[in-house]
């Protein structure tokens, strides 16, 4: 009975992680098209959500291991998975609050590593794997995607130098929408699997499923829906940083960075050198800014992101390590951990409400604020939430004028 309770808990928490995974990575595909206006914000997230769901349902070949080679797979127990998930969820929410894109896979690996360290000691973790699978890709991904985007952006502007922009924009917007859709679909096939793998492992560990079998149909559907709902919710804070915070994206530039993102993600998936979707899309947006003459790249934002990437694994590991101390203490510990997770989610959510970013105001500013003290609220001049009646009145006045003129 208690075992069943723990299993159900872990499945629920895994689906919550899948949801955070979705909204954290929504921006990877759709920040560019939203920033250039190739897709309207709502349309973009609905499209990305459907493609993520479809992608998750297509990917039935689930990775049999979730350790990623970071530690011995046999060390994984149900309490460790639970603690790892809690660490990853909290890290994802904190970076979302700050509007920083960071890799959800790194958060999950970090969480599991932290929980394993608490359970089995520091020596159980293979340090060099962290270098080759986390540090190196975190440098390579933005570099490769960035170089591709610089070259693509230069070419786009050179080729269409003499073409009137009225003729080019709709074409580039189509190009951008198609490449972004490919990224969303690829994301569903790769990240949907992670949660399915975790749930399947838990079911096998609890003897509710035979070892060596694939995920059950309801696991595939539940994971697909969780990641789709997360994507639909948009993660607008991260969307703003990626679409507006790093550099102002023009339409041709958006098409070039979209092409670079898609090409790099597909190549890395196909040739077996795993790169994080987040790092790749950030790199191409950055590269498209470097490649366009006169574009002002905010390197301070890029630097903050890099720090967030490097901190993701240890940060999630730390939270998960603390969580592992509780999840090991039987049912009471699990209940206490769940309550703490709920409180943490609530606090982060309430903090995010103070300077809310939504589909309505995502492209209005380039800053994601957390605390009121960080900057005066006047940084949101077009924010419809700041119920200042002025703009409305102005519109009405214009209408009245138009009427009287007629």
């Amino acid at each position, binding site marked *: 009975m208690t075992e069943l309770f723990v299993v159900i808990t872990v499945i629920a928490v895994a689906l919550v992680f899948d949801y955070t995974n979705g909204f954290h990575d929504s921006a990877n595909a759709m920040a560019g098209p939203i920033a250039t206006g190739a897709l309207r914000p709502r349309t973009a997230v609905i499209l990305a959500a459907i493609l993520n769901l479809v992608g998750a349902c297509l990917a039935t070949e689930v990775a049999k291991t979730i350790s990623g080679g970071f530690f011995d797979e046999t060390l994984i127990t149900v309490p460790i998975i639970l603690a790892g998930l809690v660490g990853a969820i909290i890290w994802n929410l904190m970076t979302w609050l700050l509007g920083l894109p960071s890799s959800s896979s790194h958060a999950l690996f970090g969480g599991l590593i932290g929980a394993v360290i608490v359970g089995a000691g520091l020596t159980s973790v293979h340090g060099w794997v962290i270098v080759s699978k986390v540090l190196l890709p975190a440098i390579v991904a933005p570099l490769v995607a960035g170089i591709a985007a610089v070259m693509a952006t230069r070419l786009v502007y050179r080729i269409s130098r003499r073409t*009137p922009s009225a003729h080019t924009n709709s074409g580039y917007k189509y190009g951008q929408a198609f490449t972004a859709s490919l990224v969303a679909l690829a994301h569903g096939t790769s990240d949907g699997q992670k949660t399915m793998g975790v749930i399947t492992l838990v079911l096998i560990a609890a003897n509710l499923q035979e070892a060596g079998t694939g995920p059950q149909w309801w696991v595939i559907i539940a994971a697909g829906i969780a990641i789709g709902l997360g994507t639909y919710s948009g993660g607008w804070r991260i969307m703003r940083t990626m679409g507006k915070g790093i550099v102002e994206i023009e339409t041709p530039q958006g098409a070039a960075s979209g092409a670079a993102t898609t090409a790099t993600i597909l190549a890395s998936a196909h040739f077996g050198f795993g790169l994080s979707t987040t790092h790749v899309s950030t790199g191409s947006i950055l590269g498209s800014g470097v490649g366009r003459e006169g574009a002002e790249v905010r390197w301070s934002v890029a630097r903050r992101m890099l720090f967030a990437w490097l901190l993701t694994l240890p940060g999630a590991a730390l939270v998960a390590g603390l969580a592992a101390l509780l999840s090991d203490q039987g049912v009471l510990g699990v209940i206490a951990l769940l309550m703490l997770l709920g409180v943490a989610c609530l606090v982060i959510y309430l903090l995010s409400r103070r300077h809310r970013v939504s589909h309505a105001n995502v492209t209005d500013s380039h800053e994601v604020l957390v605390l009121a003290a960080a900057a005066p609220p006047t940084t949101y001049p077009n924010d419809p939430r700041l119920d200042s009646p002025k703009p409305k009145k102005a519109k009405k006045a214009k209408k009245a004028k138009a009427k009287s003129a007629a």
Partner: protein
Amino acid sequence: MNIDWAALGIVAVVSIVSSVIFTILLASGIRLVSAAKIKSNQGSSSATTVSLGYVLLGLAGLLVLFGIYLIIPQFH
């Protein structure tokens, strides 16, 4: 250290080359179609330019289809 440098190199080259090819196809196609529009507005014939433009855009579309083929595991 067990780093797959060969895979890394291939990923880098393929990513850069394919994004450059896609953008050249897209941008040139758009440019030719636009040039054809301008020509026909001026009254001269533009059939070759416009068809070449659409061929390039079609090739860019084929690259997108190839991307879908790569993503969907059931295809290979």
